[in-house]
């Protein structure tokens, strides 16, 4: 009898050197448990994890498939726990030793994220430094950006043809940087429309973007001394449903036949639906977005496309605000640093064993 019992207990080798420790860089409430696989791992049903708060009476709290040697346990902070792990084959269990007592706790800093904040510090400093310089009235050069030269002619053309101008900021929210960049450009376009007395159509798919745009356009009209010319119905909300919005904009394009369509902001699949419809009406189209997935379609269907960062550059450039221009110089310097970092890291990566990739987790 005892022999058989013994036979069973020795039949299965237990998992060895069990480690239980507080999960690092987390908000507490978690303990990591690690062990060396049982030599019989292949034949196991699974591993069972047992927990105790006094080191004597354990209760099964979790289990994990064989081949695995790590699990996390949800715990109460600052309460002591003991762990042990059993290798299980059907009804047979072989227990590991009991872990040293361990408490879970919350950390104040997530070290894995530090690199992000170092990067933020570096780039942030550079950009702000150049903005500060620009404030001191240093003249800054920015190369020509095709789409921008086009804007003036576009409005002029519309005036001659006596046709309106359509401007859509896409389906982004107010916190999307592309939307904000677009809102910088919309003001300038509206100003020109006000000067030339060209009709301005601006449908929206987000109520907040609509509210802000309305203010900006209104401001643009009064800034050139024609507040009376502002038509409150020229800036309006349509719907927040992606394709319903596209359907509505398509409708405007074919009915109002704008001379120029501005498709500048944050776009998804509706980008080509609008761009191609606009092209079919013979309008000049100026597009711009930072959505890489949509750029191919704008580039094919539109006359001018502000690609990615060009959009932001444009929004700074067009306003001629030295402060905004300063930012661009800062971005350029940051690019140099990224380039250098890439090359340096590659040299290290190629010549040494140093795990350079871990710096960029």
């Amino acid at each position: 009898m005892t022999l058989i019992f013994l036979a069973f207990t020795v039949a299965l080798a237990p998992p060895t050197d069990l480690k239980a420790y507080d999960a690092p860089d987390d908000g507490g409430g978690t303990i990591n448990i690690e062990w060396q696989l049982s030599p019989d791992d292949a034949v196991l049903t699974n591993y069972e994890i047992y927990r105790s708060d006094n080191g004597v009476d354990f209760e099964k709290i979790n289990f994990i498939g064989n081949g695995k040697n790590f699990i996390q346990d949800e715990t109460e902070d600052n309460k002591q726990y003991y762990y042990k792990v059993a290798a299980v084959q059907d009804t047979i269990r072989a227990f590991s030793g009991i872990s040293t007592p361990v408490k879970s706790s919350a950390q104040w800093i997530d070290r894995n994220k530090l690199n992000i904040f170092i990067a933020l510090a570096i780039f942030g400093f550079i950009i702000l430094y150049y903005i500060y310089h620009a404030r001191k009235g240093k003249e800054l050069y920015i190369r020509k950006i095709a789409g921008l030269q086009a804007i003036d002619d576009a409005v002029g053309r519309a005036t001659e043809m006596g046709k309106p101008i359509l401007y859509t900021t896409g389906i982004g929210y107010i916190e999307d940087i592309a939307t904000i960049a677009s809102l910088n450009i919309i003001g300038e376009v509206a100003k020109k429309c006000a000067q030339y007395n060209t009709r301005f159509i601006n449908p929206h798919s987000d109520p907040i973007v609509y509210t802000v745009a309305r203010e900006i356009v209104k401001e643009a009209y009064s800034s050139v001394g024609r507040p009376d010319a502002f038509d409150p119905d020229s800036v309006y909300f349509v719907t927040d449903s992606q394709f319903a919005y596209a359907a509505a904009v398509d409708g405007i394009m074919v009915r109002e036949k704008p001379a120029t369509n501005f498709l500048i902001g944050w776009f998804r699949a509706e980008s080509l639906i609008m761009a191609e419809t606009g092209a079919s009406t013979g309008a000049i189209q100026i597009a711009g977005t930072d959505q890489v997935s949509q750029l191919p379609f704008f580039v094919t269907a539109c006359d001018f496309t502000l690609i990615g960062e060009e959009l932001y550059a444009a929004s700074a450039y067009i306003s001629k605000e030295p402060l905004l221009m300063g930012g661009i110089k800062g971005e350029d310097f940051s690019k140099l640093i990224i380039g250098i970092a890439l090359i340096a890291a590659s040299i290290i990566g190629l010549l040494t064993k140093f795990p350079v990739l871990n710096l960029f987790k």
Partner: protein
Amino acid sequence: MKFVERMLKIDRRIIYLILAIVVILPMLFNVPLRVRVMEPVQKLFNAVEAIPPNKAMIINFEYDPRDVPELQPMALSILRHAFTRRIKILVLSLYVQPLGMAQSALTQITEEFNKNAKTNADSILYGRDYVFLGWQPPPLVPILGMGESIANVYKTDYYGNKTDTLPLMKRIKNYRNVGLLVSLSSSDVPRWWIEYAQNRFGLKVGAGVTAVSGSEFYSYLQTGQFSGLMVGMKGAAEYEEMIASELHIKARRKASESLPSLTYAHLVMIAFIIIGNIGYFIKGRKK
């Protein structure tokens, strides 16, 4: 010259019309197009073949009517494959909408097999050869819970039978008795199976996804987290090709029948691009 001019500005409606014709016509004649099977689908087929006799396969239906054209053919092929090889099947969804898709696929294929079954042995019986577990919210509960006990997560099946009374469920206790899970989805769900079921219980996972979402999933195949992958109608067609050539099943091949439409659509686009360029070059020379 006149002709060249025309080559340069063909009315878009003509393009649309021709495109519509070449897409619709093949749909009326349903002539399947043969394809060479690419690695991702070959892998999935092999993964199904490799399921040991004592283990079952889980099919996770996770698509709504919108994705039927792309994903339903995959479902049918997988079911046909499994039933021919006598692989036991568990069917489930994490959300409620796809249940309808699953039901219709199961009815169609089981009838198809039982139509020409003579003995009880070679027919497909509910509870013995397959079980429709149905739906058990929230999604993470079944994904994790089935690692310990499937019957505990799905106390009753889709039809309300007590799960543990079904003969098949007496043998299939948890993921350890599951050789492969195939997730047919247009959303993120295949990723969840990897993140939770695979990372924790080493469950083998394969997937069938729509062409729109396809590109996001290839990397999981490269890293080996997916045992195989079908993308869009082409992927579905390749699987149909496999069961036709390897298992000699004579059945409708809906995806393969859509391939001609797909192909001709591409060819029409290419043709018009070429026409446009020819016109452009001739005109260029004239100047």
